[in-house]
């Protein structure tokens, strides 16, 4: 066990997610300093700070198993380190969907991290990267596109047109809303990959025969949680990638703008 003193947390991450069970709602991630028996700072794997999950944004000192701590490179500040967590989650998401250079990436409204998820699709080479959104005020990402779904019919038509002749499509639903899930399943072509990442509050009617079975589609059912990467087996590689990315000034700027 390591004794930690928490220096920074992201309370907003956890409190925003009302879909979680109450006991888990306050759970968030923190950047903490490692202390020795005499409460003096020591290094973990040569790093003075670690990332870890804490049960409450107000946590100050706590004992955590060493395996649950992830060392933060010394070149990074606490803010960058915290930013790396949702970034790593977004990297993981598109990796699960296997988004390739030049494939269509579709993502939707419905999460505070939607913008970041779209941005990561652009960084993975998605072309076009299309956001499905009800509001017309949401600015499209630089190099991204925004498609209004206020008129479902029109959205379906335009999306079909945009996807036509593209060799591959990967889509992530962050809304959990039946009509958006329906739109995505309807529009994906043969071999499309879809992640149902928005927690569904309602039951959904799906034509699995036409839209999954016959299209050979892959449907990943996994609600998106910006912090969950810290609890995944693959966290080391994704956090390392994210840390390397947030060392770049322009990327940090983009990420902090999109996550705010």
């Amino acid at each position: 066990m390591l004794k930690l003193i928490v220096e920074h947390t992201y309370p907003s991450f956890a409190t925003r997610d009302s879909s979680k069970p109450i006991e888990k709602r306050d759970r968030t991630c923190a950047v903490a300093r490692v202390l020795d028996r005499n409460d003096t700072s020591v290094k973990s794997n040569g790093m003075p700070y670690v990332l870890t999950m804490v049960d409450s944004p107000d946590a100050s000192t706590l004992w955590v198993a060493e395996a649950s701590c992830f060392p933060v490179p010394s070149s990074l500040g606490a803010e960058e380190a915290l930013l790396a967590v949702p970034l790593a989650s977004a990297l993981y998401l598109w990796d699960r969907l296997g988004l390739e250079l030049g494939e269509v990436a579709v993502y939707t409204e419905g999460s505070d991290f939607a913008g970041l998820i779209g941005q990561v699709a652009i960084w993975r080479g998605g072309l076009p990267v299309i956001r499905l959104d009800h509001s017309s005020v949401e600015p499209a990402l630089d190099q991204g596109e925004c498609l209004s779904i206020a008129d479902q019919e029109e959205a379906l038509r335009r999306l079909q047109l945009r996807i036509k002749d593209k060799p591959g499509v990967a889509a992530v639903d962050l809304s959990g809303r039946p009509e958006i899930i329906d739109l995505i399943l309807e529009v994906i072509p043969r071999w499309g990959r879809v992640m149902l990442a928005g927690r569904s509050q309602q039951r959904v009617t799906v034509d699995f025969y036409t839209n999954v079975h016959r299209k050979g589609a892959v449907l990943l059912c996994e609600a998106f949680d910006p912090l969950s990467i810290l609890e995944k087996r693959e966290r080391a590689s994704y956090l390392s990638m994210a840390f390397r990315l947030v060392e770049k000034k322009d990327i940090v700027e983009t990420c902090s703008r999109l996550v705010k």
Partner: protein
Amino acid sequence: MEPLRIGIVGAGAIAQRNAKEAAASGTAKIAGVFDLNHKVARDMARALSAPFFPSYESLLASPEVEAVLLSVPHYLHKSMTIEAASHGKHVLVEKPMANTLDEAREMIACCEKNGVQLTVNYSFRYLPKIQKARQLIQDGAVGDITGIQIIAHQFKDRGYWSGARSNSPDDWRASKEKCGGGFLIMNVCHVIDYVYFITGLKGTRVYSEYATLGSPAEVEDIISVSARLSNGGIASISASSIMRGTDQAEERIWGTKGTIILNGEGLSCYSTRPIDGKRPGKVFHYTKFPNVSWTAEWVKKFVASVRQGTRPDISSLEGWDNLAFISAAYQSMEKGMPLEVAPFPASPLLKNETMVK
């Protein structure tokens, strides 16, 4: 008359027909389409140049929608009618009105309470052939009615029970809970309604035997009903959806002065009186009738009643009478004895409250 702005609920084959005819009636404007199967609802909305609504709630919330036309599985009639009425929307519901009389009572009470109109789609009444038969009987062609015979036999293939003809396949028709019954409540209900309409009579006491003998379903596919009529006459129904290769559909209404036969070829009438300018004592065949959209007529009449604040032509009263006969028929076999047909509740609101107590 200002067109009634109707939200279409359900986008199955019947709903598509209903919506098209409603629009063609010239008295209605399609103000939206909703179906759980979004794809078919979207396609239908596009075809009708109407907006698509992704949920029933969103359709009811639209101020553009004045009334809803429900073409959905029977077991949803009650809840969807009540929701619509509570939003102040008038309701056009497919036949049968509901699966049980309790459901029907709640629907009637809720519509009354919210001051909205309710009609049930027994629009076959508007077929010229049916109107003609009614006219002949009113003119005394058969005298006092003594007997009615309804014969309805056809074959429903296995696909029917799993909804294969629908664009949203579902097996609700095979379920007693969802459909309320089989061939009687699903199809013969139309015939019962127009025979009521033609004769002005009702069934007062019924006894039935029914079974499921050749279909992958819980509900009946063969039924025989004997009934006493309100004027003392006797009626019988023989119906099934398992007669292969030789469909049969005919109604005979006879009385002290003659007989009327309705079937696929038209209408035949024998009378001892010189009715309709014809020689008495001879069978006359009426085979040519103008093409009329019965659904459009139904919508047209309903819109008029909404705009003028009068009772709809086919109101909850007609819906109730039909369902009361069918319910009594089903229950009579279950109880092994003839049953009286429940009359229309004098005040559904009051009755409902009494029940709650």
